[in-house]
């Protein structure tokens, strides 16, 4: 491989925009750039593209067009779903039940709601990152208004059985929301069949542009808006619509759906080959979430005795881009809340790396990573101090 080979294995963080998506977007930046709210033909053209995109995206998750709202990102969709429901829920029926492994968009919103008096329960997960359904049943009580459980976990790729969670939510008279930011386009979604009342998606996770999110809200559910302004998106999310971005998202989602089966097979094979190589060539590792239903392209591995960030930079030095769940904030290492919730020891959680494959990942990429990873890990282990390598 050449010295400037770059291998991107961080598709769960963000993805490159596909050429077909760029082609779809371009006219709406250069010729048909009208504001979709304008009355003249420029506006009407933009509006038409906006509504067509809405219809296409709705179709891909089994929803009606009027159930699709466009936002600026997955985080915003999560915020609107939670705050939009709970801020107008009557006291006595305004509780939220969610999980310990959600993305911070859900957790931080939940914390904020908690701080203003809304009861929130966080259901735990087992060692495989799977929500305990009995615990969920116990948590979803009469005062619960909303249950929110992510479809695919961003760190481990583990999938929750959201159909079951939806039933439990409904039995408690609560709505069911799922953060499908990581799963949309990769795992088939049919909101009717799965009993989903609200669902968040994000364009930039699916080879479309950053700055576009979607929130599906079942007909009949009225949410309180979180921001105020013009009447866009039926008043739920005011602000001039990002028509090029939205058109691109519709295109990207269609491509993903059309190629989904084949992509799944391909990514799974490469991911499994990477994990096989690691298992074969590197001792004292832990595969977090393996053996459970996962996104086909995600692998989360703990390397005993090595700090995740150190490993990340060492790999970055070799032109390989990955991520780690740990964060170093205000002078303390904070291991991934997801891994900790799974019962992974804080030290192993601190030693984890997430590999997320996607569109554009090749067999050569995997082979190269597999070939250099052992020596990278070995070098850092030689430098390492005071860590036990047992228990893997």
């Amino acid at each position, binding site marked *: 491989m050449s010295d400037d080979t770059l291998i991107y294995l961080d598709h769960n963080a963000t993805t490159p925009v596909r050429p077909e998506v760029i082609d779809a977007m371009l006219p709406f930046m250069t010729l048909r750039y009208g504001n979709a709210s304008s009355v003249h033909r420029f506006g009407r053209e933009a509006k038409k593209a906006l509504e067509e995109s809405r219809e296409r995206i709705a179709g891909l998750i089994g929803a009606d067009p009027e159930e699709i709202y466009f936002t600026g990102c997955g985080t915003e969709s999560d915020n609107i779903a939670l705050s939009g429901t709970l801020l107008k829920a009557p006291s006595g029926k305004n509780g939220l039940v969610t999980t310990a492994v959600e993305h911070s968009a859900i957790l931080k919103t939940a914390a904020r709601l908690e701080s203003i008096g809304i009861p929130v329960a966080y259901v735990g997960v087992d060692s495989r990152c799977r929500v305990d359904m009995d615990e969920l049943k116990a948590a979803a009580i009469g005062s619960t208004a909303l249950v929110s459980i992510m479809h695919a976990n961003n760190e481990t790729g583990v999938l929750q059985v959201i159909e079951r969670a939806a039933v439990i939510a409904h039995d408690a008279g609560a709505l069911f929301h799922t953060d499908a930011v990581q799963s949309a386009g990769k795992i088939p979604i049919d909101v009717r069949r799965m009993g989903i009342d609200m669902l968040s998606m994000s364009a930039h996770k699916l080879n479309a542009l950053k700055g576009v999110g979607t929130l599906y809200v079942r007909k009949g559910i009225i949410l309180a808006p979180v921001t105020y302004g013009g009447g866009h998106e039926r008043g739920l999310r005011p602000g001039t619509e990002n028509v090029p971005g939205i058109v691109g998202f519709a295109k990207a989602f269609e491509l993903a759906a059309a190629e989904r089966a084949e992509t799944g097979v391909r990514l799974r094979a490469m991911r499994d080959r990477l994990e096989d190589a690691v298992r074969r060539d590197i001792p004292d590792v832990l595969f977090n979430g393996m053996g459970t239903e996962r996104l086909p392209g995600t692998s989360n591995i703990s390397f005993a005795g090595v700090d995740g960030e150190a490993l990340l930079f060492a790999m970055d030095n070799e032109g390989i881009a990955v991520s780690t769940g740990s964060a170093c904030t205000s002078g303390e290492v904070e291991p991934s809340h997801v891994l900790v919730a799974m019962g992974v020891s804080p*030290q192993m959680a601190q030693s984890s790396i997430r590999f997320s494959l996607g569109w554009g990942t090749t067999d050569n990429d995997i082979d190269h990573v597999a070939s250099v990873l052992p020596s990278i890990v070995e070098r850092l282990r030689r430098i390492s101090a005071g860590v036990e390598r047992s228990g893997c």
Partner: protein
Amino acid sequence: MYSEKVMEHFMHPRNVGELENPDGIGKQGNPVCGDVMELTIQVKDDIIKDIRFKTFGCCAAIATSSMVTELVKGKSLEEAERISRQTVAESLDGLPPAKMHCSNLAADALHDAIRDYREKHPKS
């Protein structure tokens, strides 16, 4: 995020390892959760003749450990005792604010090693 000096010390750390019969051992950090540093020193005539480090931690942790060994190797204990948390960070052309605790760990491990030496070899 990191200066060139930090990355240099991270990719090519100096004095990695463990002295066989150290005159002083310094340990800092929490093995349960967080960075861990171990320094071993060899002292003769009050000079740090040799020093090694082993560190479990991020780039900043490894770089600050490496830098601290470079700063004191061949220096007197007195000079070494004057190495502060600031000195370590400055020698590396600075650290991101969230990583300053790593330079604290390195300086503390050094002082721990010197203290350990002094306890084992009280001044006459």
